[in-house]
């Protein structure tokens, strides 16, 4: 996969030069047809497997998904005609499949006995809201560079969003929720986008200082003490989130995001080494006294230790069995027993249902879709003409990639499990809405990047872009 991208990237240099690029809107439309049809067939498949008949909501679901995708396509055609043609179909497909998987788990008697009601109708509503936000971003965000103006406001908003959950009671051991009037919001999902905006704006201004003023030590360029300030602040914040909200995932996500963006902005490898060292030190230090994190680490090292010691089947063990039982081709939609995972089967553990019912084949396909979406995002960063756009695009893409890695890796026991949602697929309104907004911003950046004759922007960045262009 990486090789194909390396070659692809070499070719992508040409996309930077302005010229008559095809808009690829018809490609997008054709892909969207598949992105709608595949989940509709999957939906029929579940209905036939579980109840032996075509599901009653088939027509409504198909029309609904088709309509949302159609409207999204038309708006992209109108407001971002040169946008990347693959992102919208991939997001639609992932969201559509997620809805099918959630509906499939709604059919489970086991989960119903646990008192879990139907989640698919709500999720459909959240998806619609997500697409509405997607459309709003496309329509009202004339140019992504406008976001640059809100650099420091973004910082404040992001900090507030991150700190807010501390004042709300923990839900299932993690303080990542705020509850307002019976509605739960996961602010971390939105903070992810907003903080990327802040980092992009901040680093665009500071990158020269960070990159050039450094001391050579043991063959490495080390940053000056005062330039270390921001990274230490972010690191401290991540550790604080980890300690007070016991949220390993969000902490990892923000720190990873910052290191990636810092590296891109400064081109200094030393930042990565620095970041990794700090991350390891922070993680080990917290793990040494935080029992919540310790038990996660133990489950990661040996997912079956609880089963062996007490005979109770816990989620990590149940998830491993779900993946293993799926094998290469999977049990078939509606025919697995991933509902044995019980709690969070529809949210954090949704990927285990992919593993069991669609098998290794399905898991690989879904991972490829995520990978493709991420690489399209980074390609957008490569093609972008302004450093802010580059930084924002790579930040959002990397955040997305890290999130997928953290969730899927946690569920598959590749890394310790953290409570995060699989973008677009997992049950949860905040996640699906935020990720649609994320894709909308990426589309907007790619539209600007691929637009044939760039309008002479009044932005002061143009000159900088000239300097930076490699």
């Amino acid at each position, binding site marked *: *996969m*990486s090789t194909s*991208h*390396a070659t692809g*990237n070499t070719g992508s*240099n040409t996309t930077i030069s302005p010229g008559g690029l095809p808009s690829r809107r018809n490609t997008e439309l054709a892909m969207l047809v598949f992105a709608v049809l595949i989940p509709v067939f999957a939906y029929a498949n579940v209905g036939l497997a579980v109840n032996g008949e075509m599901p009653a909501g088939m027509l409504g679901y198909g029309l609904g998904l088709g309509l949302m995708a159609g409207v999204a396509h038309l708006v992209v055609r109108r407001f971002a005609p040169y946008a990347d043609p693959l992102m919208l179909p991939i997001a639609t497909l992932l969201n559509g499949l997620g809805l099918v998987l959630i509906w499939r788990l709604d059919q489970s*008697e*086991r989960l119903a006995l646990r008192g879990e009601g139907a989640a698919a109708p709500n999720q459909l509503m959240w998806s619609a809201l997500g697409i509405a936000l997607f459309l709003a971003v496309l329509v009202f965000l004339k140019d992504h560079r406008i976001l640059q103006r809100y650099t420091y406001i973004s910082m404040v908003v992001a900090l507030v969003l991150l700190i807010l959950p501390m004042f709300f009671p923990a839900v299932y051991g993690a303080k990542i929720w705020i509850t307002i009037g019976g509605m739960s919001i996961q602010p971390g999902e939105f903070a992810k986008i907003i903080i990327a905006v802040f980092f992009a704006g901040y680093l665009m201004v500071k990158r020269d200082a960070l990159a050039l003023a450094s001391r050579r030590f043991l063959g490495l360029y080390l940053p000056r003490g005062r330039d270390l300030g921001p990274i230490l602040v972010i690191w401290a914040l991540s550790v604080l989130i980890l300690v007070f909200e016991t949220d390993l995932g969000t902490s990892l996500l923000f720190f990873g995001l910052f290191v*990636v963006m810092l*590296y*891109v*902005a400064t*081109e200094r490898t030393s930042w990565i080494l620095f970041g990794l060292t700090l991350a390891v030190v922070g993680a080990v230090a917290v793990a040494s006294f935080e029992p919540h994190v310790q038990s996660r680490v133990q489950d990661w090292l040996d997912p*079956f230790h609880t*089963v062996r010691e007490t005979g109770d*089947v816990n989620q990590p*063990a149940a998830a*491993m*069995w779900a*993946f*293993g*039982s*799926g*094998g*290469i081709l999977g049990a078939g939609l509606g025919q697995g*027993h991933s509902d*044995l995972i019980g709690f969070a089967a529809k949210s954090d553990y949704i990927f285990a249902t992919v*593993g069991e019912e669609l*098998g*290794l084949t399905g*898991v*690989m396909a879904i*991972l*490829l879709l*995520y*990978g493709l979406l*991420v*690489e399209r995002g*980074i*390609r957008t*960063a*490569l093609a972008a003409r302004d*450093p802010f756009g*580059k*930084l924002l695009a*790579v930040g959002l*893409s*990397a955040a997305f*990639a*890290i999130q*997928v*890695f953290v969730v*899927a*890796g946690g569920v*598959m*026991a*590749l890394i310790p499990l953290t409570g995060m949602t699989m973008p677009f697929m997992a049950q949860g309104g905040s996640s699906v809405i935020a990720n649609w907004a994320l894709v909308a911003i990426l589309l907007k950046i790619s539209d600007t990047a691929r637009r044939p004759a760039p309008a002479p922007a009044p932005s002061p960045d143009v000159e900088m872009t000239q300097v*930076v262009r*490699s």
Partner: protein
Amino acid sequence: MNKPLRRIAIFCGLLMVALMVRSNWIQFAQGDELRNDPKNRRVAIERYGQPRGNIIVDGKAITGSKETEGTDFKYKRTYKNGEMWAPVTGYASQAYGATQLESIYDGILTGDDDRLFFNRTIDMFTGKDQKGGNVVTTLDADVQKAGFEAMGDKKGAAVAINPETGAILGLVSTPSYDPSSFAGNSSKDVKAWSRLQKENNEDEPMLNRALRQTYPPGSTFKVVTAAAALESGMYDIDEKTDTPDPYRLPQSTTDLGNDGNHPCENASLRVAMQWSCNTVFAKISDELGNEKMIEYSERFGFNQEHFVPVRAVESVYPEDNRPQNAMAGIGQASNRATPLQMAMVAAAVANDGKMMEPYMMDQLVAPSLNVVEEHKPRELGEVASAENAQKLQQMMETVVEKGTGTPAQIDGVTVGGKTGTAQHGENNEKNPYAWFISYAKTSDGSTPIAVAVVIESADVLRDDIAGSKLAAPVAKAMMEAALDGRR
């Protein structure tokens, strides 16, 4: 800025590759292991997902399957006349797993056995549910029923074997249990199971006394001692033995006497067997010595486990000192035997000294009715020469004709037998075990059945407990059932 961007692209690609490698590892490399992990509930769900194959006796199924409600285990096992057949079938419970035939042939019964691969493949392509095969047993429903009913409320076991083939015809153990009562997975099943456990039920209904319990064999062991005597060449059937009455045990000051007032002094083997003279057989055992006695008992199958194919525990004839070895010759010392073992003794004698391997699985049949596996009778060895075996038969027939075993007589049929009454408990204060082993021979010279019966304790006066009164009628009922089936 593009160089670090490309590196980030590669880094993100590597994250995805790491996930893909991991999913290959857990779904492909470790897939089978995780899928078949016995603690993985899917294993049990699949196992109970379709009706189980049946265990067959006389062409009729003694087991069944029925759909359950309110659990993800769709089918559970049922048993017809479960108490009577439990020692044969064992159990297959959703909550407690399977034992005996249910466990040994689990693969055939669920359809998972490799030999049923072709059937499974066909079912898969024709869209049918997987089906299990059947286990056809050698048991005879009439013999089993006769034995089970004759045992009644008494605690004990009875084993019937066809001496010519080794086929097990009856396998009774009482008190028994109904494996249907805990075949499911509900709280009711848990309660039923708990009531049957040793700690809650002193009768130990789940103990398979026919195969898994050893008893002091008492006087029935005299048949083995007599076989050893004849085979050693030092004795003959009608030759007088030089035996005092009472007989003082070697290296001891204890005198061994005989029950009742019978001509045991210097009695020949035939007479000694007829009246079950302790003195004669204890002296023979002593004269042959511990080593020889072990050798001859092992010919009958002592000191080893037998698999029929359900495991039967080892019957023992251990190394011991002289007085104990002398007592072992009358089955009253450290030697112990399962009912199966004593049935094998009777069967080997009846079959002119040739011991057939006991078995109760006749055929394994695929759902398509193809025979997957079939048992062929196999000779385990010769316990005695044909000539000596016939002398043993004469002795045992004398016992039934005019000795201690007269209650086992059957009109028009030659019956050979041996009674036994084994003392047990400290100072023999507990009710003794009543034994009877026998065989029946029809006029055409064939021997369709050999039986061993043991009754642990019945609430009767101890004088009255001799094997002939309690155990012989059970053996007789089983032999008659087998003979009736032949006519």
